[in-house]
């Protein structure tokens, strides 16, 4: 068996007295698409941010390819973050740079890729997300869907082993959700390992390999989409599913 890409054990995170994550132990295998769902405020963002240490866990382990991130120095953490792309709800594109520059920045400054190579790769990625004609545009001139596709291309430019998505479509107008989900679906098809926090149940069903249902600081259920949506086991999950229209 191959070793897990991400392995979380006894992970806990508190903000003062607010114990957001209580005790989480789970694995992400290579090529898996994990869809994290659950009520808002349940700690999904906190959890996914703990995976690349944007949030420092209070206790427990977060291992990437067998290496416990919580024990590493800042430099090594930076190094491992290159391998974990992240896409945010609010895109977080750099507004002072063009689309192309947004994508080239990290490869050039962090990996010291030369300009020509970085430019070529950036154009390839832009073609892939269907936005090569916007290479010289500034982020403010893009629609939400376009901006999020650029953000995905930017994360892919570092050639990550795993992609983390925190509600990538929640800030989008409904007609733009599809274009972003399509790209994510293609990524999944190509074998990218992904952890996706989302409220798009259609995506969860058709693309997800496992559903992690998260509430009250725990992963309450870890199941296949078929099982989870047809036969939720906990009352918490049943309650949650009854509230969202599908």
């Amino acid at each position: 068996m191959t070793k897990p890409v991400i392995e979380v054990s006894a992970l806990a995170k508190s903000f003062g007295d607010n114990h957001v994550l209580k005790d989480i132990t789970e694995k992400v295998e290579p090529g898996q698409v994990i869809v994290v769902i659950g009520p808002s405020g349940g700690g999904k963002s906190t959890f996914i941010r703990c995976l690349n240490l944007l949030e420092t866990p209070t206790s427990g382990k977060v291992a990437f390819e067998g290496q416990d991130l919580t024990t590493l120095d800042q430099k090594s953490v930076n190094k491992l973050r290159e391998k974990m792309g992240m896409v945010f709800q609010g895109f977080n594109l750099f507004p002072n740079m063009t689309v192309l520059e947004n994508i080239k920045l990290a490869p050039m400054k962090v990996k010291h890729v030369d300009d020509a190579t970085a430019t070529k790769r950036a154009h390839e990625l832009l073609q892939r997300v269907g936005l090569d004609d916007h290479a010289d545009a500034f982020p403010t001139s893009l629609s939400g869907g376009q901006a999020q596709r650029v953000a995905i291309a930017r994360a892919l430019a570092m050639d990550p082993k795993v992609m983390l998505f925190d509600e990538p479509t929640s800030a989008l107008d409904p007609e733009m959700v599809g274009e972003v989900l399509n790209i994510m679906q293609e990524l999944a098809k190509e074998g990218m390992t992904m952890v996706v926090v989302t409220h798009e149940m259609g995506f969860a069903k058709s693309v997800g390999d496992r559903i992690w249902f998260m509430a009250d600081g725990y992963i309450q259920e870890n199941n296949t989409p078929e099982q989870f949506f047809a036969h939720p086991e906990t009352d918490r999950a049943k309650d949650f599913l009854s509230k969202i229209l599908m």
Partner: protein
Amino acid sequence: MKKKIGLLLVIVVALVLTFVPLGQTNTQSAQAADNSLEKIQKKGVLVMGTSPDYPPYEFQATVNGKSAIVGMDVYIGQQVAKDLGVKLKVKSMSFDSLLVALQTGKIDMIISGMNPTPARRKNVSFTKAYYQGGYDIVINKTDKNKYKNKDSFGGGTLGAQTGTTQYNAAKNQTKNTSVKGMTSQSDLILALQSHKIDGVAMEKPSAEAYVANNKQLAAIPAGFSMSSSATKSAIAFRKGSTSLVNKVNKTVDKIKKENLVKKEYLPKAGKYLKTNTVNTSMFHYWKAFLTGIEYTLIITVCSVFFGFIIGILLALARMAKGNIFKNLLRWISTAYVEFIRGTPMMVQVMFVYFGLGIFVNLPALTSGIIAISLNSGAYVAEYIRGGINSVNIGQTEAARSLGMSNGETMRYVVLPQALKNIWPSLGNEFITLIKDSSIVSIIGVTELIYQSNIVRSDTYRGVAPIVVIMVLYFILTFTASRILNHFERKMQHD
């Protein structure tokens, strides 16, 4: 005689006193082995400090098309240097700064119409007096029949340069007369001509110069009763320079015996006074103003540049958090910013020039740039800190998630956006500095204000030079703000 012991001087002396241990060892060793004469002769240069706003003692004039300091004190200085067998170098600074400059070694002697009061004798060594002056009161010619001497001004107002001997005399030796103090002689004359005051008490030679150059004025003897020492001028050296003082006393004796001041120096100075005041049009002084603009711009541009770098470093230090070292760094930078913002820039300028001058001999221009950079850095740091805080945290998170280090994130992502946000504030700081750089005039940097003061005392015209620099300052700030706006608009397009 000029006797300005202003508040400024007190402040600076207080600051310099923080270095007392060092200062004392200096004086002690000087007294222990008086090699003052030998030292000067070995050095080959004698640096004379003077405040060239006091014709005919010392003033700025155009000599062979170049601006130079002339006046009877300068000729005395030349004679002294000649007799010592060394070269003379004349350094100009405000009168207030002379004593401190001598004590801190910026200059070797003071010849600036200074009278040897007992208070000054405590701090420096004086030669014998080289000149015995007296006092006049300058009045409007139309009042000539009204006033006879100091006692004729009952119910009226007399003016005098603040902190001078004549100011104190006017205060103490008149009855029913109010006394108005001003810093500049030319302001006083202006006040006289606009009938805000009825007479100006000043030294005889100065009074004569004013009257000679302005037909609406007349001079009457003041009639102050004074100890003769109060109307004497002497040369000051560092305390304990006995061998040097003794040697220079021989020169003073010769000058007095041959009556050189009256016979040679005053007429020579008067000649410049004439060529100087024949053409008092402001155009005639364009070179002086140009120098002023040049220095104002040098100071501003350098200070903005260094202030900006200091500001960034301070802002980053103020945001450091984590281990003890970082916390200490944050604490120090916070304290620095608070301290700088809580003390007047003028005092900082004087502290750098005189205070640090004890350790390293910095030229006035360099001191000015250092002081203003340090000052500006504190303000810029606050702008930058605000700018950094105004950048969405998501920007940092995105950069960090891409593997960028804290430093790379700052440099490539956060700072560029922060600077764009605070560009208008930074622009304002630049414009403020164009104006505030005028403060370094007190340590003798020849920027606009300093130059205008020189022109004012040269031309005996009070308002015209002020109008000229007002317009010049406005042209500078207006041009600067246009340029900054241009860049601001350009950045907005991005």
